[in-house]
């Protein structure tokens, strides 16, 4: 194996007589073609796991071209005896031509040579890909940009793999490139890589290793010895089994088959343009991230809104920037606002928000914001949705600002008295429904609303329906059912399965409300977090004390806002067990829901007096899947276990070797016998790179060891003493005569060991000590 990780000597082991040796140019070329083919196959097998990140299989044919054509070119270059250093260059050039032919044929010379237009086209494609990456959730549609990104990346990996495996003859190192390919699905797919794709990728890698080992050790044309193949199979099978089983038993590994451990939080710090994309991922993370603290003078729990989703058409939903509507100046956001807070007679509320690690172009604010002070950057606001957006794409991630807002204070009676919204009250975007609305959404709406008459009654009916006992809150069910994400088809699927999380509930209520003629939108942001118990300096507009809360990625939330004529946009809470239901939306007439007890959410109950010393040990809400504190504990434990396991793995060979030596020392002293001493000597020889051969007699081995290692006279004498007593014991018929041969003192062996150590380089010494080859020899027979 080590021969595969490091580049072997240019001249392979001499003495292989049968067949054209690996040294002969013909044989090497054939072998290199074999390795290159194995590399291409390995890359393709790994690339299969991209299925699920990109929808469908249409990405596969272009990928085939981008992997196979450059690799064919490198193989041809090797065949033509192009200098080794130029082979990867040829591969890269052909890769560029292939990509040009596939993606920018019209903007190139002769259809495949990259020209000046090609770069612009590539730039456009990359920009498109960037937008998709930022705004869409997997599986993404196979748009040209994404295909280009995928093909270019995997093509590069293919050339890299080929260079490492075939040109530099280090196939084990080529696994790095394959690993890079596997990272894409492991990070992006909610269910991670999956055992099947992992096994496919592993099979590809093993094939590459086998091809490399065959080239180095046997040369082409020879048959693989059966024992060799059997041993290789046994080792790789056990390694695979371990890789599949270990994540199941180790804590902290929640990713399933691919042992990537806790998933990397690529999106937690920067939530990106589309919070919908990452909301599910944020919620599923065992560790909280993106901590935000806010201090508010409000009596009610405060929902922090970042953006809204109005446009329910299209197969993917994404927040609309609505750049046309945006206005500058967020210090005062009331001038000319169409959705003026006419229904809002509530007290003004001051909220001071500071985001530690959260960063997003959208500014978090409680609804209904009247003005923002202290935020760095070039902010604009949308009077229709009251969302605040940073116009600078690279705004400061850490923000410390104050929002003045007014909370709505409605009573059920007030709302019940409101009429239906006029057709011109709001923009069409808040009322439009996709033309191809699935039938089961209509049915569900009809079932929910029954005979409710007023808009408020209808809204309450829909909320009650979604909070009913048949729906359950689950972060994993959409992932397992394959309907994680957003879009009208996802919504339809959710209403079938009746299990999902806030995005599904909120979208369902928004769409169902529109069917009943109530304008609606979906708000994204954070549910009220957890009371920190601190009371920062400062007061609200009316002198109320501020209470500090903190939220993080596990509080990410989505909720519907419905428009009522005369009251404006009103928040509802259809998601069971998350957030808090506003007073006006409480279901008086549904005792069946009593068991849900949303407002008993212990995280909200903390009055300042009951400062929670250990905040995380509050009892879990029934459906809460992952509790950050719990996960943090296991992660810590996992890290310690992992460190211990790594230390143990490093030290195990050393310890086993020492134990073996100690056992032999005892056996030699007990007998007294010379054989254990001799065995230890033979193992030392193996460790320091002077292995014996089965055809060696003790005498020939000792002579070779002394010659090769350049023993000094005292060491040679010690070696001779050991050899003589071993020969006597082994061949003079032990116990034949009365007297026994004198057993060499263990000191002689230590003399020899010191001599070996003296003559060895430092890497050789470390290798002999911590990865003694003699341990592996136990399993070898050749």
């Amino acid at each position: 194996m080590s021969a595969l990780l490091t580049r072997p000597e240019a001249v392979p082991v001499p003495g292989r007589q049968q067949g054209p040796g690996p040294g002969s140019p013909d044989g090497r070329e054939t072998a290199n073609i074999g390795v290159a083919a194995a590399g291409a196959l390995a890359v393709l097998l790994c690339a299969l796991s991209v299925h699920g990140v990109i929808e469908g299989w249409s990405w596969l044919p272009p990928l085939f071209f981008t992997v196979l054509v450059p690799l064919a070119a490198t193989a041809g270059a090797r065949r033509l005896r192009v200098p080794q250093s130029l082979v990867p260059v040829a591969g890269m050039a052909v890769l560029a031509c292939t990509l040009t032919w596939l993606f920018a044929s019209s903007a190139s010379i002769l259809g495949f040579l990259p020209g000046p237009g090609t770069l612009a086209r590539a730039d456009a494609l990359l920009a498109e890909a960037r937008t998709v990456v930022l705004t869409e959730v997997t599986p993404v549609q196979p748009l040209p940009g994404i295909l280009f990104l995928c093909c270019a990346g995997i093509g590069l990996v293919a050339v890299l793999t080929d260079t490492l495996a075939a040109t530099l003859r280090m196939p084990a190192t080529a696994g790095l490139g394959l690993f890079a390919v596997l990272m894409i699905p492991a990070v992006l797919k909610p269910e991670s890589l999956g055992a099947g794709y992992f096994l496919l990728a592993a099979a590809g890698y093993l094939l590459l290793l086998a091809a490399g080992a065959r080239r180095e050790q046997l040369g082409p044309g020879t048959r693989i010895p059966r024992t060799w193949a059997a041993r290789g199979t046994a080792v790789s099978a056990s390694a695979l089994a371990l890789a599949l089983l270990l994540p199941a038993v180790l804590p902290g590994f929640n990713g399933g088959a691919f042992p990537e451990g806790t998933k990397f939080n690529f999106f937690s710090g920067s939530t990106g343009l589309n919070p919908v994309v990452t909301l599910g991922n944020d919620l599923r993370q065992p560790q909280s991230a993106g901590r935000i603290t806010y201090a508010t003078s409000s009596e009610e729990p405060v929902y922090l809104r970042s953006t809204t989703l109005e446009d329910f058409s299209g197969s993917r939903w994404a927040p609309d920037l609505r750049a046309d509507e945006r206005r500058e100046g967020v210090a005062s956001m009331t001038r000319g606002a169409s959705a003026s807070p006419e229904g809002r007679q509530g007290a003004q509320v001051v909220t001071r928000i500071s985001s530690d690690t959260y960063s997003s172009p959208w500014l978090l604010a409680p609804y209904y914001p009247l003005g923002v002070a202290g935020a760095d950057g070039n902010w604009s606001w949308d009077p229709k949705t009251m969302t605040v957006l940073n116009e600078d794409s690279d705004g400061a991630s850490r923000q410390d600002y104050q929002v003045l807002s007014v909370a709505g204070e409605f009573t059920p009676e007030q709302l019940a008295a409101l009429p239906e919204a006029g057709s011109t009250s709001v923009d069409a975007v808040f009322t439009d429904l996709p033309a191809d609305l699935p039938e089961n959404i209509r049915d569900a709406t009809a079932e929910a609303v029954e005979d409710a008459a007023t808009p408020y009654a209808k809204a309450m009916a829909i909320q009650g329906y979604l909070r009913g006992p048949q729906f359950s809150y689950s972060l994993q069910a959409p992932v397992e059912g394959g309907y994680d994400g957003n879009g009208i088809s996802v919504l339809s699927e959710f209403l079938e399965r009746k299990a999902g999380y806030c995005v599904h509930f909120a979208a369902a209520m928004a769409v169902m409300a529109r069917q009943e003629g109530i304008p609606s939108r979906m708000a994204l942001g954070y549910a009220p977090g957890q009371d920190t118990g601190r009371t920062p300096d400062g007061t609200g507009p009316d002198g109320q004390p501020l209470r500090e809360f903190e939220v993080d990625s596990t509080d990410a939330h989505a909720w519907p806002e419905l428009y009522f004529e005369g009251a404006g946009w009103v928040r509802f809470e259809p998601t069971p067990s998350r957030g808090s239901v506003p007073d006006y939306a409480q279901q008086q007439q549904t005792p069946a829901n009593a068991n849900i007890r949303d407002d008993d959410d212990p995280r909200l109950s903390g009055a300042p007096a009951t400062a929670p010393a250990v905040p995380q040990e509050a009892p879990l809400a029934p459906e809460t899947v992952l509790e950050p504190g719990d996960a943090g504990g296991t992660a810590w434990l996992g890290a310690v276990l992992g460190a211990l396991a790594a230390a143990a793995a490093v030290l195990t060979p050393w310890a086993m070797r020492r134990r073996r030596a100690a056992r032999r020392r005892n056996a030699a002293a007990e007998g007294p016998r010379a054989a254990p001493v001799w065995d230890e000597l033979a193992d030392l020889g193996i460790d320091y790179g002077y292995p014996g051969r089965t055809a060696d007699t003790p005498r020939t081995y000792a002579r070779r060891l002394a010659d090769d290692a350049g023993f000094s006279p005292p060491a040679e004498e010690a070696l001779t003493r050991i050899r003589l007593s071993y020969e006597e014991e082994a061949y003079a018929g032990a116990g034949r005569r009365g007297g026994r041969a004198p057993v060499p003192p263990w000191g002689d062996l230590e003399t020899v060991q010191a001599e070996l150590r003296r003559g060895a380089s430092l890497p050789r010494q470390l290798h002999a000590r911590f990865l003694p080859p003699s341990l592996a020899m136990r399993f070898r027979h050749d």
Partner: protein
Amino acid sequence: MDAPIPPAAAASLNGFPSRKTATALKSSLAPVDAEAFQTAAEGILAAVNTVIDGKEDAARLVLTVLLAEGHVLLEDVPGVGKTMLAKTLARTIDCTVSRIQFTPDLLPSDVTGVSIYNQDSHRFEFRQGPVFANVVIADEINRASAKTQSALLECMEEHQVTVDGGTHRLSAPFIVVATQNPIEMEGTYPLPEAQRDRFMARLSLGYPDARSEVEMLENHQSGSPLESITPVVGIREASAMIARVRDIYVSDAVKEYTVSLGRATREHPDLRLGASPRSLLQLLRAAKAYAALEGRDFVLPDDVTGLADAVLAHRLLLQRKAAVAGTTASDVIASVIAAVPVPRSAGVPERLRR
């Protein structure tokens, strides 16, 4: 008549056909102790080395064969000291030596002896031929006809001479040192394979190195150095030394190893004919003698491998293809030695044997 096969050797060659071995030592002879053996052996070798310069290994090998009760075939170009070596060795032991110069007209009776009518006693009397000696030097054995060669070879094998229905025992110890000239082949009768098999070892002396050659020129200017040789041991001592060699211990591991070597030659693709069971027996016997010369009372695998070339090479028949390719029997033996694993004694168990 048949001396018992040494038990160790018999056990080592289990399954091999038991065959007659030719030893006629009186059992009353007590083996010499190790020290006396060593002194005597060193004395003999020292004496030989005063005559033959720079050929210690060859001298040791010939002495090994003598102690192992075998016969040796010296094959080399003329003038490198084949006959001189044989004569010197014979002279260091106080024993009878005879020399037969083989010529194409030599008759079997010239070797074995003839029955002559004694007119005084009116009876036929057997007149012993030159073969009745302890050391017989058969010079240029390939020059005699096949009939004469086989007469000698029968003596070598059976240690007896049968003439006119009467059987006459040869003296003991009995060693034939035959020489053969491989260059001048015209009018010669090369020994057939089956007869080469009767020689325990074949060796070629080769030219001495430059320093030894200078010394030789210096020392041998006046008269034959042979004159100055006085016997080191007597015939009884020599027999006692031979008896000691028969008592050298051979472990099971070494027996197994010897058999493995033999089997490997039989299965070797380059060989038409591998080592015979007799050759293995002789190899082991030679190894015992060699171990005794080294001052050990047990045989090491190294003794076997060290002698394998001398003992086995002249018995192996190469495939025509291999011979054309330039492979020699010595190459084959070297490759076999490099491939056959050395077994470990059953009494010393441990998984690693390297």
